[in-house]
């Protein structure tokens, strides 16, 4: 037998597979600072489209030499001609992203994860509860719902910001608040003199909410401390577990369900999440 017999047997099958870690190149079309720490970037992949995705899904954005971070897509898939990311400077990578301007090239992987189940929301009333930067993924959902407004029942938006000046997407927020087909409620933690609205945590807005729980889906995203109180309110409204959706944030390295950083008990936040229904996480003590 020839000595190379073993070598001939070597599998080449995997070599044709794409490297999961290889990003595609996107270009920044426009960068708009929203607040002192948040910037909205509009991007487009250089070759090809971002592809189909659901509100709530995220991409892995690279700063070569520094690192890679998960960022939610904050524009709706119904909007064509690119996608938007809203980035808060929270550390080394996010800072570097926010220093980029129009024209800059950015390596991006994704979209990844499971977004909001918009099919399930069809024909239902939808409650959107967002806190702070949590508005970014929610904006995608809101845009999506509004683009197909007729398919959904009542839309409630409950939004909490730290201070009046720290509100993201101010123009859009303004337009939502003035639309007759949306119940828009907003609150701030710390008011200033000009603020006429509600003061208190986002849960303080539930007081104004009237929904038919069985026909309502809720979507929640915000800082970690927000989840439990909001859950309690939703349970109080008696929403079914399978109709409450939470978008979670965890440390992520690969985004592919391998590196282990994002596990919520046994669930990969990147793959089975970041959006999970309460029915799925009810038994997971680490979720909230």
């Amino acid at each position, binding site marked *: 037998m020839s000595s190379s017999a073993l070598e001939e047997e070597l*599998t080449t099958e*995997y*070599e044709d597979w794409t*490297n999961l870690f290889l990003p595609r190149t996107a270009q920044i079309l426009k960068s708009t600072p929203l607040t002192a720490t948040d910037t909205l970037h509009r991007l487009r992949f250089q070759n090809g489209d971002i592809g189909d995705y659901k509100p709530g899904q995220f991409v892995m954005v690279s700063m070569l*030499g520094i690192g890679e971070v998960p960022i939610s897509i904050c524009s709706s898939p119904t909007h064509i001609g690119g996608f938007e990311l809203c980035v808060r400077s929270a550390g080394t990578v996010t800072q570097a992203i926010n220093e980029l301007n129009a024209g800059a090239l950015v*390596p991006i992987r994704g979209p990844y994860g499971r977004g909001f189940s918009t099919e399930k929301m069809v024909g239902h009333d939808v409650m959107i509860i967002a806190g702070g930067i949590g508005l970014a993924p929610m904006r995608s959902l809101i845009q999506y719902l509004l683009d197909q407004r007729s398919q959904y029942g009542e839309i409630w938006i409950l939004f909490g910001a730290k201070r009046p000046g720290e509100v993201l997407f101010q123009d859009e927020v303004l337009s939502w608040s003035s639309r007759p087909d949306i119940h828009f409620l907003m609150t701030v933690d710390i008011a200033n003199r000009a603020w006429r609205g509600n003061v208190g945590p986002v849960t303080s807005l539930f007081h104004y909410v009237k929904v038919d729980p069985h026909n309502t889906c809720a979507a929640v995203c915000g800082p970690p401390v927000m989840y439990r109180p909001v859950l309690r309110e939703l349970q109080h409204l008696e929403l079914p577990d399978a109709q409450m959706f939470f978008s979670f944030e*965890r440390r992520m390295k690969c985004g592919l369900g391998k590196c282990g950083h994002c596990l919520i008990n*046994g669930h990969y936040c990147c*793959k089975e999440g970041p959006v999970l229904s309460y029915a799925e996480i009810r038994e997971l003590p*680490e979720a909230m």
Partner: protein
Amino acid sequence: MVEAMEYRVLLKKDIRVWVEWLMGKGELHAPVAKSASHPQYQFEKISQPDTVCLDYATTILPPKQCVQPVRETLIRFDRVANQFTLSDQVPERRLHIIFGIHTCDIHAFNFLNTVMRDGNADTQFLARSANTAIIGLRCRQHCDDKSFCESMGTNEPPDTGYDILMTDIGDRYFLELATERAAKLVDDLSCIPHTGDEDVVKWRQMLADSKKNFDRRLSINIEELPAYCEANYHSPMWDVIGKKCVACGSCTLVCPTCYCFDIRDELDMSLQGGERYRVWDSCQLGEFAAVAGGVNFRRDRRDRQRHRVHRKVKYPKERYNLFACVGCGRCSRACIADIQMLDILRQLGAKSHEFQRT
């Protein structure tokens, strides 16, 4: 027991000949002693056939490193001004041979392959794994008082996942050839003849004898472990363990089924090129689950230890119907704080009974 395709024997004195021949076929990894005088072992790439030591109890690091290197380049990049090029890293097409691996570690490889195939297939791992020939070695007793493979059912080989299995039957090894590749791994080497009847008899005797050497160390029903974990989620046992644990990460780094990694970037001296690589990580380290802004989802060592145990005997059981713990005992050996897996599993069992009674 799965019937092998073919049986052969190899005189112990001829091991060297075979090892040397195999070295010519691919990259051979086998256990070697850490130092001439030291009874601790490590899987290493063999360059001197004499260094192979089949008479080893266990190794410090698992053979996982032969397929998943500690540090592995994922992509390379080159950046000039606002331009960059990215290139992926295709794993080298090469035959790897892992020689003398114990059955528990073969089980562990099977587990890793399952995980890496699940969902987004990890091509780098799978490509290397597919081109790795496994030449296993049946154990004749527990490695030491830390192992409990018999309880996890891993002192017997799995149905698949190896090419050849060796059994020490005195002056020679009995070889079970399980795959087509196996035949090529022994070729028609004169030192590896077909077996005579008395070899087979002796081998069967040896298997029967070995069975008796494995005492049952975990008297709980392991199928119930996920439920026991659940029942003990808030048990004070985790506080006790968390107090002892110094979060050195050793238990996970030596585990043959752990696969968590970190991803980092590093620039070349040119400051233009660079690579993104992954490196073994441990869920026991403080920053593992920390996110920007100071929130850490597993801040307490207690929570991290519980997470580790659940990742061994609860989550994978629920997801793949497999245990990620193969009972090799490496974590217990490596733990400087004397946290013992066997103890933890016993406690889970015992406490659950209490729990269920009350």
